[in-house]
């Protein structure tokens, strides 16, 4: 199954951790694209050529200068379904603004929110959850 990841995170250390944890969980060969700004990530998403069954998990930070995570989601939602249907967004944030998080998690492409710091446990739990939602079966990669 074609599964890949996109990490959008402006903090170098969090980007490194997310990348590492995905590899530790899914194996070193899983494709990961990393972006330190939401603008360049969006450009990538618009122009990426994906095969029909390919799924991409986006780990998205919220508080970023210039284009923040919430605005990224708004722009992402304006893209055509043939693009957005490949993607599932997981918000990774240190924000404690519950009202804002509740609002965002209701968005069509947003699966869930992970409170920073990201750990292997949290990542596994979310990945399990996502695969149940979409495939009806558990995939326990990397274990």
């Amino acid at each position, binding site marked *: 199954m074609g599964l890949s990841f996109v990490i959008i995170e402006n*903090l170098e*250390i*969090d980007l*490194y*951790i997310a990348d590492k944890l995905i590899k530790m969980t899914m194996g070193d060969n899983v494709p990961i694209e990393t972006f330190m700004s939401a603008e360049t990530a969006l450009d990538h998403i618009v122009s990426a050529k994906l095969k029909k069954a390919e799924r991409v998990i986006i780990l998205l930070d919220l*508080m970023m200068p*210039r284009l923040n995570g919430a605005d990224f989601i708004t722009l992402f939602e304006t893209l055509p379904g043939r693009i957005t249907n490949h993607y599932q967004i997981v918000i990774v944030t240190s924000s404690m603004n519950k009202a804002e998080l509740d609002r965002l998690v209701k968005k069509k492409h947003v699966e869930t929110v992970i409170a*920073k710091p990201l750990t*292997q446990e949290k990542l596994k739990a979310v990945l399990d959850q996502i695969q149940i939602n979409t495939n009806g079966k558990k995939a326990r990669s990397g274990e």
Partner: protein
Amino acid sequence: MSEKLKILYIDDELDNLTGFKANFRTEYRIFIAENTVHAIEHLQKHPDIRVIFCDQRMPGKTGVEFFEEIRTAFPLPIRILITAYTDIEATISAINRGNIFRYIRKPWIQQDIISAIEEGNKFYIANSMLAIKNEELQQAYTELDKFAYSVSHDLRGPLTGILGAIDVAKEMSDIKELKDLLVLMEKSVFKLEDYISSMHDYYSSRRGELKIADIDFDHIAEELKDVYRIYTTTNKISFETTVNQPEPFRSDELVIKMVLNNLVTNAIKYQKRNFDNKKIELNISVYDGLATILISDTGIGIPETHFEEIFNLFSRATSQRAGSGIGLYNVKGGLLKLGGSIDVSSVLGEGTVFKLIIPSK
């Protein structure tokens, strides 16, 4: 008090007016008006009139009506009614509605007027202080709100980053990888430290009183070069300073240093990577009581759309480099205290020039 208090007296009888003026002109600066139209002209011309005395019985308009009318447009001056016993009902109701501060019985005696002015003035000062304090408080609240919001990100962000890194490190055995992680953790710690020291600048520049002394810009420029030599040499940045100070200049040295430190740190931090001719130029010239300071760099530049907002608290124009979003806010606040100004011009990908103008105190 060096300047005389300004007092306005309104009465339709010219004798009363001249008598009033003659009695109090040495103590106070007296304005007189025979009718309310003339009185309003005085108030418009002299917004710093402290106390207004007005006779109750005037043709066309009573004193109470006049005070009620001007209360919204001129809320600050203290309103005192001069009246005879027969008008006592109107007076009491005017006091109760807050339109007048107190009343003086006619015919007045000198001591009553003086005590009314002194009491009224005390009340005026307390009131204006309250207004100023209120405004300061409002600003402090707004900033506190911003701080509370930013603390979760700017303080908690690097901390959760370090926590996450520790968690990952536990699973790692490769020393090289662990060392990479340590470098990142170190950066997070520096970021926290940077944040806390800008906080310190913030409070010392906001709350502190200015300490005005002679400024030797040559000395300050040399000091800057020394402090930043380690960064400029390791990053291969040429840092040139030129100072032209033919006349004495007085200002607060700590604030000036805070401003320049922030701007030079930015000029170092926001240099282009992989660029051979990294340069920072600091040019200071003092002329006619004005110091003009130019700081230019060959850095990544600032998009023109961000020129205004970079000076706002917690504003960040780039996500590519570490920054707290407090530095330039402190710079602007510091310059404001010194009565100075700052301008920015920048070309994206070429560099940035900050121009500061500071008057000598």
